[in-house]
């Protein structure tokens, strides 16, 4: 069973919802403090990308986010039903500085550049995998979780 499974309508306000819930779940699972900023940023980018695609191509469909903990550590998946991911550019800032990309957006989700968001996620998180298909894309992110220590008295039961 997943720790958390979210279905969020593709609204810009919900990118923050996803960040908050995933960070809370990750902290509960014991993620180290110094990884939280990276997790928050990467999940935010992946969700912004997914929601931007849904707003354009599947506005009635929610974006799915799952958080699992298991032997592989913390696994966060962001699942969208948009068109397949384009090739990941080597230089994440190339899209930002490109004049053609400066669209005068009507809606906030149109401010998202999906390829840039994906480049930032894969550039920042070594373990990121992108599974793109005709039905959509799953971006999977993994972070290690510390193994709980076993103290000497951990299983002692007092019988008095």
């Amino acid at each position: 069973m997943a720790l958390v499974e979210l279905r969020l309508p593709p609204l810009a306000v919900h990118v923050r919802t996803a960040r908050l819930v995933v960070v809370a779940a990750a902290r509960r699972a014991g993620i180290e403090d110094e990884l939280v900023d990276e997790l928050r940023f990467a999940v935010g980018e992946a969700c912004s990308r997914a929601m931007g695609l849904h707003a354009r191509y599947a506005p009635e469909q929610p974006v799915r986010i799952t958080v699992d903990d298991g032997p592989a550590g913390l696994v966060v998946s962001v699942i969208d039903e948009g068109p397949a991911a384009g090739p990941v550019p080597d230089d994440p800032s190339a899209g930002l500085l490109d004049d053609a990309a400066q669209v005068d957006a009507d809606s906030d989700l149109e401010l998202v550049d999906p390829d840039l968001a994906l480049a930032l996620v894969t550039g920042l998180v070594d373990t990121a995998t992108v599974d793109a298909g005709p039905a959509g894309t799953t971006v999977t992110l993994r972070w290690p979780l510390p193994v709980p220590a076993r103290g000497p008295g951990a299983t002692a039961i007092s019988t008095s």
Partner: protein
Amino acid sequence: MDLSLSTRTEGDRTVVMVGGEIDVYTAPKLREQLIDLVSSGQYHLVVDMEGVEFLDSTGLGVLVGGLKRVRAHEGSLRLVCTQERILKIFRITGLTKVFPIHASVDEAVAATD
């Protein structure tokens, strides 16, 4: 909205103080502010990021948009940021080469290069 904005003038510069989170939901508010300033003839901007708790690619995009707008009028857009977790985002996107980033508003206002 989890974004606060306030502006003040310091000489011929306009300082925009930003607080809270800049993401896809709040970035349009910052975008509007920068557009309004340029429309009203303020071309030398200092964006004080010291109160920013979160910044993502849409926030970066809005700052780049602001930079382009002021440059069209021979202006400047400088940032004030000493927070490592925000500087890191500028670094990984290569934008430290694009934006002058200062350690204080005083330093940014005095800079002329």
